[in-house]
């Protein structure tokens, strides 16, 4: 193998610099090994948008001729390593053109390594990732997702820790010696070098079988040809009639796009205490994505296929402990909370209490004064 590539999947704005540091670090370190390379972001991404899944890549090669095969492309499709900077992305990402949810391991080569920053166990993470149909490895760098503020880079060493881990799981791309040399040169900081070496030692890799993982079928469709597309750049609107939901008589569920979902942007989701809800309508009115379904008994049920986790509902709710934002990692499905509550109120109450112990990582910008200082203080890394 004389050409290698690494994909970094990150969240828009909060991890843009982090992803860039990793990809630049790979190319600069590989240079020390006598290789050449390129680092680039996926052109169509909108990485300035809060929490949106976006990608950066690094490709390194022994010679220009081989590297050239990877130039003038939007993304390498057979990566040795896919680095995931938020474990909630393991559930899959919707690409920028919103062609539906795609597996996080889609562009990973068979036998490649998925590197995830996570505090979860490998077994738990594997369950959330789509089945690949070929064996690969899962390596975990123990850490919560590192989210920067809007304007300031949170230099918590996540960049160099991932670079150190990469040298371990993919020595064919870059050696630890070169990585250490490059980090020292780039950051001129012994602590960062130490963090990289520590991560190199600590990273654990678990083999994942071809049939392991989430067996949900990823969304797919055929792009229409020019003779099939409507002329005049016209896209038909959806029928505005409310959807019929089996088992629900009354209420209102708006028609939503089959493909335009956006929920993989979410890092936290609202859970609702229907026992304290006063049906004031504020969450429903203020939701920028019209994600609340009106239930037959007049409650507002956040639809997890439509919610992008912005937290506006929690902010506008006038009742204490009615809407609470919870870390997305605490959930494995998109099921209706209201249906769960209507079926078993006591069971729902237990479920709710358990869920709200999972504090969100608050990736979606400013929440309260002093938040950033708290995050740095709490960070176990």
């Amino acid at each position: 193998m004389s050409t290698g590539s690494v994909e970094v999947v990150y969240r828009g704005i909060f991890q843009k610099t982090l992803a860039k540091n990793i990809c630049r670090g790979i190319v600069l370190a590989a240079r020390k090994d006598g290789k050449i390379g390129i680092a680039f972001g996926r052109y169509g991404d909108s990485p300035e948008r809060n929490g949106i899944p976006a990608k950066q890549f690094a490709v390194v090669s022994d010679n220009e001729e081989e590297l050239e095969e990877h130039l003038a492309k939007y993304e390498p499709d057979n990566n040795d390593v896919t680095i995931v900077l938020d474990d909630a992305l393991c559930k899959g990402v919707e690409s920028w053109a919103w062609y539906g949810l795609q597996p996080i391991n889609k562009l990973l080569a068979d036998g490649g390594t998925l590197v995830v920053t996570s505090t979860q166990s490998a077994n738990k993470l594997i369950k959330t990732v789509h089945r690949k149909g070929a064996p690969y490895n899962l390596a975990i760098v123990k850490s919560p997702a590192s989210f920067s503020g809007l304007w300031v880079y949170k230099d918590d060493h996540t960049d160099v820790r991932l670079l150190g881990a990469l040298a371990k799981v993919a020595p064919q791309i870059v050696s630890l010696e070169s990585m250490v040399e490059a980090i020292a040169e780039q950051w001129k900081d012994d602590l960062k070098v130490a963090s990289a070496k520590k991560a190199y030692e600590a990273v654990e890799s678990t083999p994942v079988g071809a049939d392991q993982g989430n067996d949900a079928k990823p969304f797919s469709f055929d792009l229409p040809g020019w003779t099939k597309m409507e002329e005049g750049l016209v896209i038909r609107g959806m029928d505005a009639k409310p959807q019929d939901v089996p088992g629900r008589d009354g209420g209102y569920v708006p028609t939503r796009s089959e493909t335009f979902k956006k929920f993989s942007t979410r890092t936290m989701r609202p859970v609702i205490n229907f026992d304290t809800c006063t049906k004031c309508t504020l969450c429903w009115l203020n939701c920028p994505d019209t994600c609340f379904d009106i239930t037959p008994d007049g409650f507002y049920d956040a639809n997890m296929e439509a919610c992008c986790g912005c937290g506006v509902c929690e902010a506008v709710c006038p009742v204490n402990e009615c809407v609470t934002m919870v870390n997305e990692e605490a959930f494995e499905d998109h099921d209706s909370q209201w249906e769960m509550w209507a079926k078993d109120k006591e069971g729902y109450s237990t479920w709710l209490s358990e869920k709200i112990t999972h504090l969100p990582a608050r990736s979606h910008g400013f929440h309260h004064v002093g938040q950033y200082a708290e995050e740095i203080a709490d960070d176990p890394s």
Partner: protein
Amino acid sequence: MTPPDLAVAEKIEGPSGETEELISGSEAIAHACRLADVDVITAYPIRPYDTVMQYVSQMISNGDFDCEFIVAESEHSQFEIVKHASVVGARVFCGSSGVGWFYAFEALAVTAGLRVPMVAMVGNRALDDPGAFGVEHNDALAVRDLGWMLNWVSTAQEALDTALIAYRVAEDKRVSLPCAISCDGAFLTHSQTLVKVPSQETVDSFLPPYDRAEKQLHPDNPITIAPQVNEDWLMEMRRQNDMAMRRARGVIIEVYEDFNAKFGRGGEPFIERYMMDDAEIALVGMGTLAMPVRVAVRKMREQGKKVGFVRVRWFRPFPTIELQDAFATVHAVGVIDRDYSFGSAFHSGVLATEVRSALYPMESPPKVISFIAGLGGREVSADNVIEMADMAFDAAAGGDINEQDTHWIGVRE
């Protein structure tokens, strides 16, 4: 060969209700707007196009014409306003000249991409600086690659007729592309000639109302027009645009046939052939160049020189088949450009480059000699034309005229 009568001298019995008026090309366009019952017209003054807005506002204030007449704060807004009005179902008209047309360029580019069937008039004008306002064709030609249909007219009568034809072609569902009618500054926009103005009944029998049907932007018809797309979609959209322009050719032929039948005039759709039947060499040009060229052709015919003239009426879609046919037996073609394309192949003008390209696949194509003349509104005299024709004759006879260069005619050394 006996030369045909000049158009203005012809005594063809027109359809009933037709009146004869002494009007300029700009006023003829304004009459066409009135007769086409245009709903929204936007304006921003620049010479020579602004004469159209003067006549339109006069008609409105006299109670002869009812439309939304919006004077925008710039050419860019002018074209944006009509673009949006068109998608909600209004028949629209707009226009500009020279650098004004260029100031609207962003809007012009997307108007074609959006398949908005706008009709615009370009009062051809040199591109400043210096502050020149004589005719050059580079202004309208700048949109030649973007999906605009383009034509050049040579009389006020043709301006009126072509504007009506333009609406019918542009709004045809097989086409749905914008169309710009070029009128040479001064010679057409500011000169009054006798023009037959048809009756409303005749025009109504020719031009159906604008109907976007299922593509009308309206709350009852929820659609999105022009969403953001990536590389997965745009190429298919461009291909649709390409097909629309290809289909326009057939529609133009169809519409001229109907126009000829209903109005008793109109001629051949894409080109005008003047004394081409037995021509050994031919000159080609667009717009009011036709006048001095026809004069020169008659003079040379009197001397027994077999020269003909082809006036290109539609530049987009380009009359490739018609030109190949017209030049099938000529030995040399002299292309007169009232424009320039600095640094292009052979340093030609735009028309010469296109003509060369169109004739290249012919089995034995004629020699193509390119000329640049009449820039900045400079008159092209009959003597200038004879000079060019003589050079073409010389090339046809194997003389030492350099075919791989472009000859500037009427320029001071």
